[in-house]
């Protein structure tokens, strides 16, 4: 079966980008958010393919958002391109350092340590009056790589997000099929064997951790620009839990899945908040249990099973 992922990705991106002028405002916002969060989930998928589940991607999501916002606040730079670059660099830099600690852990330890680290950031931000404490602060974008974009900022941002996600997904797809990608899958299956074949498991895990963080930071930056506001909740462990949920929902089979999973999640969340805010979490929990019990490879696996049977 030929690998049509990149073709589908390119086609979908083109179609979506072309439809931007026709899309209603609320949908523009929803899709931007879905794609931005989908980026974070892409990073999670990479980690899960390496056999690790992080309950703390919110750390980089939040770092990216705050980095982008601080670039505007401190340096009065309103350029989206620069703000996003700052988001990615900040996230990757922190991950490069934290990776030394985290790459030594697996399983539950890795999950809960990553959670604790994101809670450290939360704690620091909440106590920081200069950064707005629990209220956070607002940001505004006025240009993109030099060109002014006021007025239709939302749509331009959607375009940027589509391009970002498509590029990231394509890159990740190539990576997963490269030597390092296959090594990551082997690590998930049997680390001992990989080490006894001469490869450094730690280095690969560290690298994947940094890549996932960079994707998380990019997603956080895009979210910040789209929403126009940031606050410490982005680092709270329940935010990370949402990313885990979407990753479980999408499965790790294909890089296209996180967008579908994220879009589905955002849509349901918006509906639930309006009509049934007190059973929202319960629905999530029940859905997660159902997926774990009946479709452990995510909803994507159900789609693939049907395609092969037909």
């Amino acid at each position: 079966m030929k690998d049509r992922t990149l073709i589908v990705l390119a086609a979908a991106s083109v179609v979506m980008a072309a439809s931007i002028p026709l899309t209603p405002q609320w949908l523009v916002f929803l899709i931007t958010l879905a794609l931005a969060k989908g980026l974070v989930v892409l990073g999670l998928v990479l980690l899960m393919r390496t056999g690790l589940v992080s309950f703390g991607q919110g750390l980089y999501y939040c770092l990216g958002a705050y980095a982008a916002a601080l670039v505007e606040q401190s340096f009065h730079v309103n350029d989206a391109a620069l703000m996003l670059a700052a988001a990615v660099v900040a996230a990757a830099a922190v991950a490069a350092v934290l990776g030394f600690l985290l790459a030594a852990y697996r399983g539950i330890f890795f999950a809960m340590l990553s959670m604790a680290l994101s809670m450290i950031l939360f704690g620091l931000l909440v106590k920081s009056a200069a950064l707005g404490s629990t209220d956070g602060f607002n940001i505004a974008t006025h240009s993109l790589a030099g060109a002014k974009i006021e007025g239709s900022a939302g749509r331009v941002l959607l375009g940027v997000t589509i391009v970002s996600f498509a590029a990231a997904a394509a890159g990740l797809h190539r990576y997963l099929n490269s030597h390092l990608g296959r090594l990551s899958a082997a690590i998930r299956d049997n680390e001992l064997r990989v080490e006894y074949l001469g490869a450094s498991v730690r280095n690969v895990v560290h690298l994947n951790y940094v890549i996932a963080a960079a994707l998380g930071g990019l997603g956080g930056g895009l979210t910040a620009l789209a929403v126009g506001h940031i606050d410490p909740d982005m680092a709270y462990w329940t935010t990370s839990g949402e990313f885990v949920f979407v990753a479980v929902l999408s499965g790790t089979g294909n890089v296209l899945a996180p967008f579908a999973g994220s879009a589905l999640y955002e849509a349901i969340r918006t509906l639930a908040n309006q009509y049934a805010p007190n059973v929202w979490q319960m629905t999530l929990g029940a859905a997660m249990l159902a997926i774990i019990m009946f479709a452990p490879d995510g909803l994507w696996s159900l789609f693939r099973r049907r395609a092969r049977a037909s």
Partner: protein
Amino acid sequence: MSDLLAVVVDGIIYSSWLFIMAAGLTLIYGVMKILNIAHGSLYALGAYLSATLVGLWVAGGHAPYGSYAMLALSALLVGVVMGPLLERGLLRLMYGRDEVVLLLVTYAVFLILEDAIKLVWGVDSLYVAQPYDLPGNFTIGDLSYPVYNLVLIGTAVVAGLALAWALNRTHHGKMLLAVIHDSEVSRALGINVGRVYLVTFTIGTMLAAVGGAVTAPTLAVSAGMGVEVIVLSFAVVVIGGLGSLGGAALGALIVGLVRSAAVHYWPTVELFSVYSVMAMVLIARPKGLFTPPEARRI
């Protein structure tokens, strides 16, 4: 001098609370290899139920000190009902699967319970200060503390001693220790591991509920109170070593004192201090302070 005393006393009070929470979590992990994220919701459940029962008791005009019995009763009820319900009804179906999958299952249970609590008790906060105010205050030096804090400390000490005695001196306790070491061999030796799991999970749930019940009179019982508890409890458990009761006690003591010192001298880093201790312990001893020796794998 009174400053240092305040740090120590506050630290011990906080450590007691941490120990009650950590003990249940570490016990469940040690025996069943499940890190129970729902521990936080069970804590909240204990708090809510005890608030309701105490409220009913006091409104019914009964003897005020009986409200303490209500606290104990609510913890017991939560343990005895939720423990078997979750273990038999759900977790049993998932045994044998990867530990991270089980983590996700407990996370799902947490989400469900959070909303279940909201459905039953609504979103308003509950206040039941009677058990807290009742015994009045006592003084150490020139510091004044509510006597209720002694109840908290007492509960932690009693729970710790009872658990230690039960684990090391009773037949059933030793079976539990055997399962902690190796569940497969225990099963092969004829230990009813399924029953050990059920009992352990029930005790762990009860401990979480005790934590909630004992905390309820000290604050506003509100939705979401279980959310932060999880990460704190986990930090303590990790510092002490997963599965070690003694480790949970030591970890609770360390975290309690460090946090107390932070609150007094450098409030900005309060939360940060707890996780820093965890990070430092892990760097020095990757598996926590007390860990069972690991057998050679190959």
